[in-house]
């Protein structure tokens, strides 16, 4: 990616104005994937002077600043204590450490990357996003919105009232993108299941959640039904895996996830 000017903004408002001014102005988060794009921009907007790289633990939520690098998420003890540490695991599963020192949670979220490992647990955890402009919106709703946002992500907010969780990244090597990733979390309102790298971006397994959350007991038959439901989400082919293999591992790991989470709860 090329750009003509670079602006380290001093306020969110300044960044917001720049974004509204010209569609060729863009926020550059960590910049890890900049080189992969051949676009030419007018102004790159840098938010790094705004103190958005902090993780703040509140009573009911943990608020992760959008410029927080993945390595800081991986290292944060408060986040590690949430949902069996699935967000820490997912952050730690991305590329190598030096990349994680660069890549930010905001970049992962706003980019809506299909291969993102952190989107999947965030979605399962019921994360909310706080935008300068639009205000608060659930990650679920954000992912369903088409197109690029002209608002600025301030933070990602995850609830603390979560039960046990499960995260799995299916991949060829440690440094690979996911062929599939899957997160299951128990919340006060029941199970939440998210599947990413299908290869399109993470989505909730709503039918499976409904099956589990309306069942009296989570027995083998219920788990089987839920796993089948997750396997019937929309999957596709890419060089990392075929549609058929994705369906298969989605099925297998959903079963294992629910069993593990259920047994943790007992």
């Amino acid at each position, binding site marked *: 990616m090329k750009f003509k000017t670079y602006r380290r903004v001093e306020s969110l408002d300044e960044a917001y104005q720049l974004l509204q001014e010209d569609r060729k102005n863009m926020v550059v988060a960590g910049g890890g994937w900049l080189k992969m794009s051949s676009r030419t921009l007018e102004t790159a907007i840098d938010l790094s002077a705004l103190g958005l790289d902090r993780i703040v633990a509140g009573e009911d939520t943990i608020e992760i600043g959008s410029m927080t690098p993945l390595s800081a998420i991986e290292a944060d003890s408060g986040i590690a204590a949430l949902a069996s540490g699935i967000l820490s695991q997912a952050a730690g599963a991305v590329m190598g450490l030096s990349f994680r020192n660069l890549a930010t949670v905001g970049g992962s979220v706003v980019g809506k990357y299909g291969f993102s490992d952190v989107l999947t647990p965030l979605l399962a955890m019921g994360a909310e996003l706080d935008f300068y402009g639009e205000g608060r919106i659930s990650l679920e709703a954000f992912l369903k919105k088409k197109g690029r946002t002209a608002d600025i992500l301030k933070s990602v907010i995850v609830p603390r009232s979560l039960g046990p969780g499960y995260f799995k990244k*299916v991949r*060829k*090597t*440690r*440094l*690979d993108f996911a062929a599939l990733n899957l997160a299951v979390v128990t919340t006060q309102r029941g199970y939440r299941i998210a599947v990413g790298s299908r290869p399109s971006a993470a989505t909730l397994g709503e039918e499976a959640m409904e099956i589990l959350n309306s069942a009296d007991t989570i027995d083998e038959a219920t788990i089987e039904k839920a796993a089948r439901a997750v396997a019937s989400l929309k999957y596709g082919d890419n060089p990392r*895996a*075929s549609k058929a*293999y994705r369906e298969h591992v989605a099925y297998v790991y959903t079963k*294992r996830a629910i069993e593990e989470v259920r047994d943790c709860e007992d």
Partner: protein
Amino acid sequence: MKKKTFKTVNTQFPSVDGKGIMMGRPAYTDDFAPVDALTIKVLRSPHPFARIASIDTSAAEAMEGVEIVLTHKDFKRNPFTRAGQGYPEPSPHDKFVLDEYVRYVGDEVAAVAAVDEETALSALDAIDVEYEVYEPVLDFESAKGHDSIIHPEKEVYEMFPIGFDPERNVAASYHMEIGDVEQTLAQSDVVVEETFYTQAQAHTMLEPHTVNAHIDYQDRLVLFSATQTPFHVRRILSQTLEVPISRIRVIKPRVGGGFGGKQAIHGEMLAAAVTLRTGRPSKLTYTRQEVFESSYTRHPMRLNIRIGSTKDGRLTALDLQGLSDTGAYGEHALTVYMVTGSKVLPLYNKVDAVRFAGDVVYTNHVSSGAFRGYGAVQGNFALESAIDKVADKLGMDPMALRQKNMILEGETSPIFEVMGEGTEGTAMDMESCKLDYCVKRGMELIGYEEKYPRREVSEHKIRSIGGAIAMQGSGIPYIDMGAATLKLNDDGFFNLTVGATDIGQGSDTILAQIAAEQLEVPLEKMVVYSSDTDLTPFDVGAYASSTTYVSGNAVLKAAQQMRSRLVEEAARSMQTSPEAIIYEDGRFEAEDGSPGIDLGELATKLYYNEDQKQLTTTGSYYGTKSPPPFMVGFVEIEIDRETGELDILDYVSVVDCGTTINPALARGQIEGGIVQGIGMALTEDEHYSKKGKLISKDFLNYKIPDNYTVKKLTTEFADSYEDSGPYGAKSVAEIGIDTPPAALANAVENALGVRIRSLPITPEKIVAALKESRTDT
């Protein structure tokens, strides 16, 4: 067998250059690029097969900062091969520096040299090309006789018969038969027939292909190149660009990995052409995408194998027939394919009949070329997978079947005489072969008795083991030649200059160890330099597992000559006869008890005080045989029976490479090879789009092993001594890569009962095979 206690060889020393490199000192080609060098960028074809109907470079040439734009119109039609082999080459001359045809996505169309990278890239955008697009050949199994002829040009030729038939898209072909295979198979109690596929594999050395060029003050063309073959580069540049060879100097500084990928010519032609035409220094470094897309890969192959056996497990016949995909150009087409038979089939030398045949075809894919273990790794996957199938059919333990049939010390195989590399072979007996020990020791180390074939360790996980044996060669007899020069300096230290090319494997270090051993001096007295076509003696380069054996023998000869010259000089100085001199550990003593002299003192006298002279000796060596190293590889895996995902718990290698000159570096060669083989077996794959464009053109999409891939490597060496090798050494560079594909395929079958016949062995293929086997039953 000669055996003695060594002082310097068979001993571990750190690499002579390891510290300086770790500390970031300038060492690699790009570190030496002149600051004012023009940056060269190459316009590459977006089509797998097309003719350049017109090309307009005027806008690019008019740009400020652009020094020159080169297209096919700027070059005489003088075909060469990039293969980087000796002369005459066994590869077809089918490549032009720039051509009006482009034959794969990534092929060269034009080159720009400009003051900086940004200008050069902008100039590429300004070149206007019209292509006449042809139907590409993207499936190697339908290449032969395809309507699209990839090399229709009249100038291409073979230097001697290699089965070159470009009209039918055949780059080379080969056939040999010993005994009567069909009849023997017909009379065998058991016949196994299997078809295997191996994929293209990328070398992915960390340093991309890099070259820079300048004209020196004597008006000579000087290249720094990250090459494995500086002397071949000099010759091929001279022949192709029609510059007198005496006007070219090629310097190979430290090279950041090669694995065969840098045996060939890559950017050298264009850098030389730019500098010759402009008179200005230039540099060309491939991007990682260019390394993937525009250098070359391992030859993908289809291999059909038939093995016959008596019912008590005596193998009777081997029949290996296949097809190899050389891509757009025929580098190493014949040699790689021949080695697929000749470095594999002699493992079972007691058969009554053996046949090996096949074609090497052109396609519109990235070219294939030399890559560590070439041919052998493909052939080994087929043979050693099929041997397990034979054992299964016989109800015999697969290692027992191997032990009953494999080659042993003192034996030979008729294949050695029939098949060489591109030519006829050389008969030889296995004077050192500890394969029997390797297998026995490997079984102990992996815990074969307890662990074979499988154990269930949890609801989802099974642990299993698989094994394979392998052989390689040590240089090509009567072809590969190396030379070394030793120069004595005052105070008794030496310069060892070699044409052998250290590319990271540690040859500078082990060659210095060989010289130090012979001259009985500490290693730090041996200052080694490689390689520079002006300053160092000739060597074919680092390939064919030849450096330790061929170049090492050259060093030993130079050192032996130096030792006798020193004894003569000491005798003169001590006023006695050479026969009366006892030399040990840097000191000369006389049998008669007259006063001795230290090497350092003698050397200083030689330069300053007495009968002054320079002592220099040169040794050259070419092999008259190619003693194979042997090994066994065993892998223990833990596999998920539902998802097919597997972890490698341990990879055991027991290797007979003769004496290990430097045990730590030898281990490095084996373990590096093993892990490359594991990458080929499990995760590495070249993906193309339907239109023939490479998708896996970066490290994000082409997955080589990382530090989590293998939990443990266990590497041991057999006690072995090869009389013809320097201090008993054979080669060790390539053999490590051979066993993992078959060993892993065998382990998967032992765990789950399914046989994966195409590489890589992915969880997805395992799951598909499991589903199929359930439907079958």
